[in-house]
């Protein structure tokens, strides 16, 4: 079911988080100079990944020529011609589902997708047949109508809100170039909804973009426009978009501008755009950097002009606005099983009634003609029968009627109650102050409303590392330059005044973030000189400042002489590196499309950016080719260590390389993220070769990506090593404690990360996932056979360890005989050989035997594969938590997906069921809310089954004494109101508010979470026990008054009233006995419901046209009535109460003991606090 959900970006997935994105660069064929005019900042530009079929499809697709069938033609500035051939959508949007006219039919149609509603509809229809009219017209339709009405009102309200926001959205205005009307061509304000495809639109700074448009001009002479896409993907940094050179040369008022754009059909891929433009007979190809999307805002650009290509519902943002994902909870699946059992019971009851009715009719066949209560024959003269169709038909009618009478065996109100309860639970989760994240100002979000209770049954948590366990706020920590480690033992954070700043005119510009600097390194840089060491260090920082895609923005401060430089970029690593370079005096001051300005130790230098090779996951590195002021051309490369060492010239400086490798190892075992930086000076010939190849590759229309990669790979070789950097990604607050709590709760935490093994292990230690007493099994293989062998060894190892601890337990029982914990560490390369092969089974065996599993270097699809490994083989509930686009597949695969609304954008949140700000909230979410939700929902379902069944059984017993004619003593209105009004509210209130244990206790004893994992609160055994209790209670309700009034003048209505009150009181007392916490709302709803029932019964009996007129008054006046109610309540509850008292005292569950502890805990406080802590070893500290 997870796959059915729409992906934000269906075909390719963005690259794994840690590495650096790079913009493609293309030389402009029009301009002869080697000037670069287009850089893209799209981090998520689809890049092929090994082993992913989707990527190769994508590649093939990009090489395909757009055929006329697949394309739409947009005539620039000619909306009438554009729209006359194709019917493109207008720009008005409609997120509302219904209109006034269509509301009723559509809403009903949608509601009746529920099978249960169809069942009740069929029954209501059956009841309208005169032969089967058990209830009156009104009474039979009421419950269904009530449920439908409540849902319809809810839907209508939501839709009204959507309509209102649509109206506002459609009513906004934008400047559109008017047609050749009076007064020449100029931009005029037009409402958004009237914008048509093909029109030219002008957007000013900070304005929202009304539709998807291809840029034609911008205020920047090179055609750059910065956009903020926060509304689209939540990423707050600026992205760069470009107008084509061909259009830039035209005049802005579009005089004499003709051309058309042939673009692909509307699709939901916000990172892809594939089109070409024909202008003045020249064909120009367009890609994602040339389009700006609806919902984004123009920033740092005075204005931009574009032509609308997709409008309204066809814009990418609208195509992506899918609703919350729908999943079905585990409990609900189980509930459906019991509903089936109940249906079986219902059918049995009906069959019993109709068989008995048949027997009765046959035995009394001769008497029926004139017996006063049957009177089959209408008159003695003719043979005609009145309302009698032969025994066969009578039996058949009896069957149908009994279904109608016993219909509420399937609890209709349960469905609506569950929705209300989940809504209430969601309200409390959202309002929970401890799930609020101060840093991102975000509350908890419930995106899926129907899996609240699954949170109480999780057994596996799959967690991403970067941004989930860590903050994803990178901080430059140390560098190894030229084989020397500058770990900054004496590093200090500079004060405000002494921070490095750049003098621009009479202003001081200072980087926004301060970074600790190593004094030794600073000295080395300042001392200058052309000595090798200083030179290397300067080149190292130049590389950091230049080899990136960061855009510097200047921010005003209160002091007019001071300005802050804010670096905006896709990758937090790059931002950290640029800030670091700035701190050491290499301040990136300005970036335009063709050059960058870097303040090198006080001297402003301009570097031409000649070429940029973007990051891809094959190369795992990026590079820039820079034309330096001294006319040399340099290639700077940075990338992951394993990819970089492959292209570094090892024949020279071998000692430096070895030293760097040692440092890298040290850094990553500290949990730092490492990058290796290299460079090479290009000779004129090399540069010319490269340039021609690059030009050729970038002008190719299709398959450009592959060619550019080849060009990059060609030039990135024989590098000199400059050094390596270590960036710290800080652990989020409370992560080690959270992981420990989860582990105590019996939840297995697996960490899936794209990081290197050493980094992953060290993070594992620092977040207490790994402890020193653990036995580590590392699988790190490069072939299938080797993998198999590793796995076999691992299995043998786990078996041996298991046997060992078992033996230990046998010999020294009663003492601490801790099992040796095992950790499995496996990398992505091994997983390639294992996942989706026969080795999966082996991996499953090993992984489940281990306490901790750590997967490093995994690709997004592998993350999903690991989740599937568990999900497909066990019944255990899985939860995936992540923050980035690379976690989307895993979040969707798991039973419960949690998104962290953090630094990496909103894709994860959009795909998730729940979203929150911090990893540590997971503890509260699962242990507290999950536990409560599960406990409440489980009890509510059981109780609803019981509540309706007890009523049905009571009706059934009476039917046995009415010649099986399905009379009910209870008035039809009471029957109908029973589950809707008489008993509905308390169960909803209890389902929302009741707590078996306090938050404090649940957090103190995480093991209590096990009750949900073991399905202790809802299982078949409990269901059967409840049903047995139900039968007993119904017997008590029915037979006590029956026997007491056996030979009396009691009339049907009076007895019916007694039964009605008795059953309502009994089921409420039953609930009252099981309530854990009585607050005033519980009291009010419980006793209020009993009073409401009495009032309803009194009102019904005050209507003179009903047969039961005044019965309740008569019966209430007798002492017998009150004695009966008391007797029924006590007799009905005695077995249950005794069982409850017995089990709670002699077979106490953990929860029961914890409840006692909560109440009488002060007696045993000392022992209580000691025990749960003792099971865990001291946390590992001191690494960071």
């Amino acid at each position, binding site marked *: 079911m997870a796959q059915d959900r729409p992906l934000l970006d269906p075909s390719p997935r963005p690259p794994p988080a840690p590495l650096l994105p790079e913009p493609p660069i293309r030389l402009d064929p029009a301009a002869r100079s080697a000037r670069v005019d287009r850089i893209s900042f799209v981090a998520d530009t689809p890049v092929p990944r090994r082993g992913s079929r989707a990527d190769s499809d994508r590649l093939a697709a990009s090489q395909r020529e757009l055929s006329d069938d697949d394309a739409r033609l947009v005539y620039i500035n000619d909306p009438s011609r554009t729209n006359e051939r194709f019917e493109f959508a207008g720009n008005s949007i409609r*997120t509302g589902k219904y209109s006034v006219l269509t509301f009723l039919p559509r809403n009903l149609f949608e509601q009746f997708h529920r099978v249960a509603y169809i069942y009740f509809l069929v029954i209501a229809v059956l009841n309208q047949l005169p032969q089967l009219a058990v209830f009156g017209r009104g009474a039979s339709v009421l419950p269904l109508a009530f449920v439908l009405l409540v849902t319809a009102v809810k839907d209508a309200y*939501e839709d009204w809100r959507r309509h209102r926001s*649509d109206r506002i*959205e459609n009513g906004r205005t934008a400047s559109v170039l008017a047609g050749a009307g009076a007064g020449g061509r100029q931009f005029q304000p037009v409402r958004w909804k009237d914008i048509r495809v093909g029109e030219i639109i002008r957007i000013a700074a900070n304005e929202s973009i009304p539709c998807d448009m291809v840029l034609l001009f911008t205020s920047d002479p090179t055609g750059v426009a910065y956009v903020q896409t*926060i*509304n689209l993907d939540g990423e707050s940094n600026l992205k760069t978009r470009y107008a084509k050179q061909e259009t830039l040369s035209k005049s802005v008022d579009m005089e004499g501008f003709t051309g058309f754009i042939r673009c692909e059909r509307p699709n939901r891929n916000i990172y892809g755009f594939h089109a070409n433009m024909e202008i003045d007979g020249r064909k120009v190809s367009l890609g994602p950097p040339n389009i700006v999307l609806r*919902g984004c805002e123009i920033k740092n650009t005075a204005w931009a002009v574009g032509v609308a290509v997709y409008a309204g519902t066809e814009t990418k943002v*609208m195509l992506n*606005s899918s609703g*919350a994902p729908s999943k079905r909870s585990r409990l609900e699946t189980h509930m459906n099983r019991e509903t089936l059992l109940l249906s079986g019971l219902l059918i049995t009851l009906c069959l019993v009634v109709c068989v008995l009715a048949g027997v009765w009719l046959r035995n009394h066949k001769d*008497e029926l003609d004139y017996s*006063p*209560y*049957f*009177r089959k024959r209408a*008159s003695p003269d003719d043979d005609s029968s009145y309302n009698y169709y032969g025994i066969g038909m009578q039996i058949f009618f009896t069957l149908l009627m009994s279904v109608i009478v016993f219909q509420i065996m399937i609890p209709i109100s349960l469905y609506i109650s569950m929705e209300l309860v989940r809504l209430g639970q969601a*309200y*409390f989760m*959202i*309002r929970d*102050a401890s799930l*609020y994240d101060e840093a991102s100002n975000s*509350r908890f979000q419930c995106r899926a409303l129907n899996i609240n209770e699954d949170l109480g049954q999780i057994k596996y948590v799959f967690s991403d590392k970067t941004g989930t366990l860590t903050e994803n706020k990178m901080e430059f920590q140390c560098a190894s330059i030229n084989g020397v480690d500058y770990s900054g033992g004496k590093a200090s954070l500079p004060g405000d005044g002494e921070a490095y700043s750049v003098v621009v005119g009479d202003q001081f510009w200072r980087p926004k973030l301060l970074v600790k600097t190593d004094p030794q390194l600073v000295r080395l840089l300042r001392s200058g000189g052309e000595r090798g060491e200083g030179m290397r260090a300067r080149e190292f920082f130049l590389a950091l400042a230049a080899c990136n895609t960061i855009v510097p923005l200047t921010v005003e401060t209160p002091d007019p002489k001071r300005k802050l430089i804010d670096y905006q970029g896709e990758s937090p690593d790059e931002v950290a590196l640029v800030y670091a370079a700035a701190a050491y005096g290499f301040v990136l001051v300005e970036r335009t499309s063709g050059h960058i300005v870097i303040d090198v130790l006080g001297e402003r230098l301009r570097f031409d950016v000649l070429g940029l090779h973007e990051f891809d996951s094959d190369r795992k590195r990026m590079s820039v080719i820079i034309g330096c002021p001294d006319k040399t051309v340099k290639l700077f490369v940075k990338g992951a260590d394993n990819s970089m060492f492959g292209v570094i010239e090892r024949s020279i400086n071998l000692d430096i390389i070895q030293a760097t490798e040692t440092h890298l190892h040290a850094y990553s075992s500290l949990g730092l993220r490492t990058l290796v930086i290299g460079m090479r000076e290009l000779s004129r010939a090399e540069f010319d070769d490269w340039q021609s190849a690059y030009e050729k590759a970038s002008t190719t229309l299709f398959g450009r990506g592959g060619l550019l990669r080849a060009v990059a790979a060609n030039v990135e070789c024989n590098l000199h090593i400059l050094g390596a950097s270590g960036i710290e990604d800080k652990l989020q607050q409370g992560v080690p404690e959270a992981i420990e709590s989860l582990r105590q709760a019996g939840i297995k935490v697996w960490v899936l990360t794209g990081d290197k093994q050493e980094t992953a292990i060290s993070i594992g230690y620092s977040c207490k996932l790994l402890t020193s007493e653990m036995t580590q099994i590392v699988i790190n293989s490069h072939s299938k056979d080797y993998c198999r062998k590793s796995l076999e060894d691992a299995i043998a190892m786990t078996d041996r360890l298991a046997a060992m601890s078992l033996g230990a337990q046998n010999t020294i*029982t009663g003492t601490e005989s801790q099992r040796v914990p095992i950790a499995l560490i496996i990398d992505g390369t091994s997983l390639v050989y294992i996942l989706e092969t026969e080795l999966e089974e082996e991996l499953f065996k090993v992984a489940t035997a281990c306490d901790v599993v750590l997967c490093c270097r995994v690709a997004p699809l592998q993350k999903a594969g690991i989740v599937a490994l568990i999900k497909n083989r066990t019944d255990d509930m899985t939860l995936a938590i992540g923050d980035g686009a690379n976690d989307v597949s895993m979040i969707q695969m798991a039973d419960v997906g949690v998104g962290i609304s953090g630094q990496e954008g909103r894709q994860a949140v959009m795909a998730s069921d729940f979203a929150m700000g911090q990893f540590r909230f997971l503890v509260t979410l699962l242990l507290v809310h999950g536990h409560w939700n599960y406990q409440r929902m489980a009890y509510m379902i059981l109780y609803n089954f019981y509540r309706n069944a007890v009523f049905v059984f009571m009706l059934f017993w009476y039917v046995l*004494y*009415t010649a099986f*004619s*399905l009379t009910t003593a209870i008035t039809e209105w009471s029957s109908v109101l029973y589950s809707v009004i008489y008993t509905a509210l308390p169960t909803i209130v209890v389902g929302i*508010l009741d707590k078996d244990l306090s938050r404090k206790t649940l957090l103190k004893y995480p*093991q209590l979470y096990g009750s949900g994992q073991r399905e202790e609160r809802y299982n078949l055994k409990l269901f059967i026990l409840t049903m047995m209790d139900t039968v007993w209670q119904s017997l008590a309700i029915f037979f*006590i008054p029956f*026997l*007491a*009034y*056996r*030979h009396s*003048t009691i*009339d*049907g209505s009076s007895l019916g009233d007694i039964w009605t009150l008795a059953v309502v009181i009994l089921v409420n007392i039953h609930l009252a006995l099981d309530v854990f*916490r*009585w607050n005033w709302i519980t009291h009010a709803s419980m006793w209020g419901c009993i009073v409401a029932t009495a009032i309803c019964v009194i009102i019904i009996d005050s209507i*003179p046209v*009903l*047969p039961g007129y005044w019965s309740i008054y008569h019966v209430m006046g007798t002492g017998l009535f009150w*004695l*009966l109610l008391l*007797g029924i309540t*006590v007799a009905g509850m*005695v077995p249950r109460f*005794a069982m409850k008292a017995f089990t709670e*005292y*002699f077979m106490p569950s*953990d929860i029961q*003991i*914890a409840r*006692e502890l909560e109440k009488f*805990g002060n007696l045993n406080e000392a*022992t*209580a606090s000691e*025990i749960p802590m003792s099971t865990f070893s001291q946390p590992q500290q001191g690494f960071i």
Partner: protein
Amino acid sequence: MNSKGASTSGGDGTRDSSAPRRNSKKPKYSRFTQQELPACKPILTPAWIITAFALVGLVFVPIGLASLSASEQVVEIVDRYDIDCIPEQFQNHQLAYMQSSQTNKTCTRNLIVPRKMNSPVYVYYQLDNFYQNHRRYVKSRSDKQLRSKAYEHVTDSCKPEDKANGSAIVPCGLIAWSLFNDTYKFSLDSKVLEVNKKNIAWKSDQDHKFGSDVYPKNFQSGELIGGAKLNASIPLSEQEDLIVWMRTAALPTFRKLYGKIEVDLELNDKITVVIQNNYNTYSFGGKKKLVLSTTTWIGGKNDFLGVAYLTVGGLCLFLSICFVLLYVFKPRTLGDPSYLSWNRNAAGHPS
């Protein structure tokens, strides 16, 4: 819910998230939203359980005894007469005897008063096997018609006794049609015992349910006569036998009030009853009984309630003793964390 709005509509979400962070979304603290309302947390401690059971036992046993003694005080005479009131020669042709208008249906029964019966002595007739709660039967009436003359023609629910000779029957329906028509005349030592037939119906029925302007019409004028005929000059609200009959019984064995004897009956009084045995229960195997009974606060003679209360009360006392014993022999400290399942094995407690 803000999350929902944002996810269901692109436009909506656009404005949600673009709102600057000037106002914090931090949930306001209240005991309600943090689920910390003051609450009572009852726990079934041994003391509570034993007290509850003992208390129930102590309350129920006296009530049971009281009910039993009340039931014991009731004097009840039940006489089944449906078989005996058929002459010997018709025993094999009961139906023919009942249906014939020629036969003499008078029948005399003698009842001995077993204990002194204080006035008022209620006279009931009891029918067995008569399904006054049969679905066909209970529906066969028109409450509207009974209430008001204006609704005289509302007889749809009354079939097949809705119309006779083309016009509506009042009161219509099977219930009215089958009105009981045996009569009893009591005498004590050849002195007539007056049976008061006034105020045997509910006053609420007389005042509001049966109209004082509704007169019987066309009643029992069809070919099938179901039971008693009604005096067409008396409004329905005064026809108390009908009103009693129309309050359909809950169970297939039921009693209906016939009248009240408002004198005390002494021990061994010999009461002679002259029965007009008109009502045909023979066609469906029903039984007819004449019942004379006094009442107490629990109604007529019925030992069940007393027995039930004694049983439940006794059971509760027994359970309370059981729990006392259990707690003595298998005590457990409440809230002792060493009983928690994850502590039990490690700490050496037997699981």
